[in-house]
């Protein structure tokens, strides 16, 4: 009995230190969410102004740009999957991957082949473990994405999307040409709800004009410098990058929220486990004491019986 008592005590101790770790991770995640939300808010003006500029060009000139051109017969699609770098965030990464698989199934049904682009170590590991090919991966920034990383990813995706026109101009493309680009990320709705979402990034759908002008109203004549098409050339890649940055920021906030929730559940579980183990340990200790007492009493009785027999 004494041995198992020691075992129980050791288990209680290790559960306690585990609880300390999960509690710390919960608190860290909680404090980082606030920062992640702030970053998302700070990035909003840029996205807003860019959208405004893009819709201005779209409304006041004739948009025809390779990035907005729909392929007649799309054969290949690129999918960017945004997961976390580290685990201990509950089902966060696996639900993104599930959503990605769902999207992949849909795209395959439409007769498209899929090129995978991965962000986050978890998705990379998922593909490597299954020995499935992917085109490129970026890791090491999932909880604090920077704009430069988003720009890097954006450039790669745009390059893949425009690979066919680059080839026509005799340039060698780094990637195989794709006709569509999709992103799968987790949208941060609230601290409690984060949903994995799949959106199509390219070809871009430009939403025209925030307030559609009246029929008889004179349109403000925009001056484009150097020209509308060159401005668009500059704007659209930025727009794509800022959309990716937005997705990365949303994913980061979701990851931290998922981690906080998972770690809170782990801490609560540890609490319960400690309670249960303490009860069992107490029982074992009590059983040990009871046994010792009965052994002593038994021994004393035996001695008394022996003495009485000798005296007789």
């Amino acid at each position: 009995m004494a041995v198992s008592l020691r075992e129980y005590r050791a288990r209680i101790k290790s559960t306690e230190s585990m609880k300390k770790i999960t509690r710390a991770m919960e608190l860290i995640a909680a404090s980082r969410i606030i920062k992640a939300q702030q970053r998302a808010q700070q990035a909003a003006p840029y996205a807003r102004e860019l959208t405004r500029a893009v819709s201005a060009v779209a409304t006041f000139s004739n948009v025809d740009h390779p990035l907005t051109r729909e392929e007649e017969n799309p054969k290949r699609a690129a999918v960017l999957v945004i997961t976390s770098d580290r685990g201990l965030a509950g089902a966060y990464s696996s639900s993104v991957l599930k959503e990605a698989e769902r999207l992949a199934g849909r795209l395959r049904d439409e007769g498209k082949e899929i090129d995978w682009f991965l962000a986050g170590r978890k998705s990379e590991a998922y593909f490597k473990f299954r020995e499935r090919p992917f085109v490129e991966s970026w890791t090491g920034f999932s909880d604090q994405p920077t704009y430069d990383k988003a720009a890097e990813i954006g450039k790669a995706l745009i390059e893949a999307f425009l690979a066919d026109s680059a080839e026509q101009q005799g340039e060698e493309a780094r990637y195989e040409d794709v006709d569509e680009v999709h992103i799968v990320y987790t949208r941060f709705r609230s601290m409690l709800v984060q949903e994995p979402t799949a959106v199509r990034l390219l070809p871009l759908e430009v939403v025209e004009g925030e307030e559609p002008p009246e029929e008889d109203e004179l349109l403000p004549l925009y001056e484009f410098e150097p020209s509308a098409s060159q401005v668009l050339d500059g704007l659209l890649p930025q727009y794509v990058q800022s959309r990716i940055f937005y997705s990365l920021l949303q994913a980061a906030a979701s990851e931290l929220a998922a981690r906080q929730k998972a770690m809170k559940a782990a801490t609560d579980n540890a609490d319960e486990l400690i309670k249960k183990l303490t009860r069992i340990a107490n029982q074992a200790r009590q059983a040990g004491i009871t046994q010792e007492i009965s052994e002593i009493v038994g021994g004393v009785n035996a001695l008394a019986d022996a003495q009485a027999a000798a005296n007789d």
Partner: protein
Amino acid sequence: MADHTGAADTEALHVELVAADRTVWSGDAAMVIARTTEGDIGVLRDHAPALSLLAEAVVEIQVEGTDDVVVAAVDGGFLSVANNRVSILSEHIELGEDIHVDKAKAELEEARGLIGANNEAERRVRRAEARLRAAEKVSSGPGH
């Protein structure tokens, strides 16, 4: 410039200086001077709607009602003007007062050393020059 939009005369020129990850400066201005890929552009109140590509250069904003000038280095980007609202968008924007002159000089030297090595180098030089100019403009005091 004629006003095509019919905005009120009293409306001030509102300026937003927005980098990819934050708003660097926003407020009312008397005039904005920026360098587009075609040349310098000055924007006053009631400017016609415009959308231009910016060069890696310095943007100056003369703050409304004061002698203050906000100087910032931009890394390319866009200038859009409509309805007395100017937004300057760039991936990286730094205010002149946040740039250290000596560091900017060192960076410029380093970038110059790289010229010819790759295509990025020239861009880096232009960027470093813009930063240095922004920093020097601020340190030489207001009134420029």
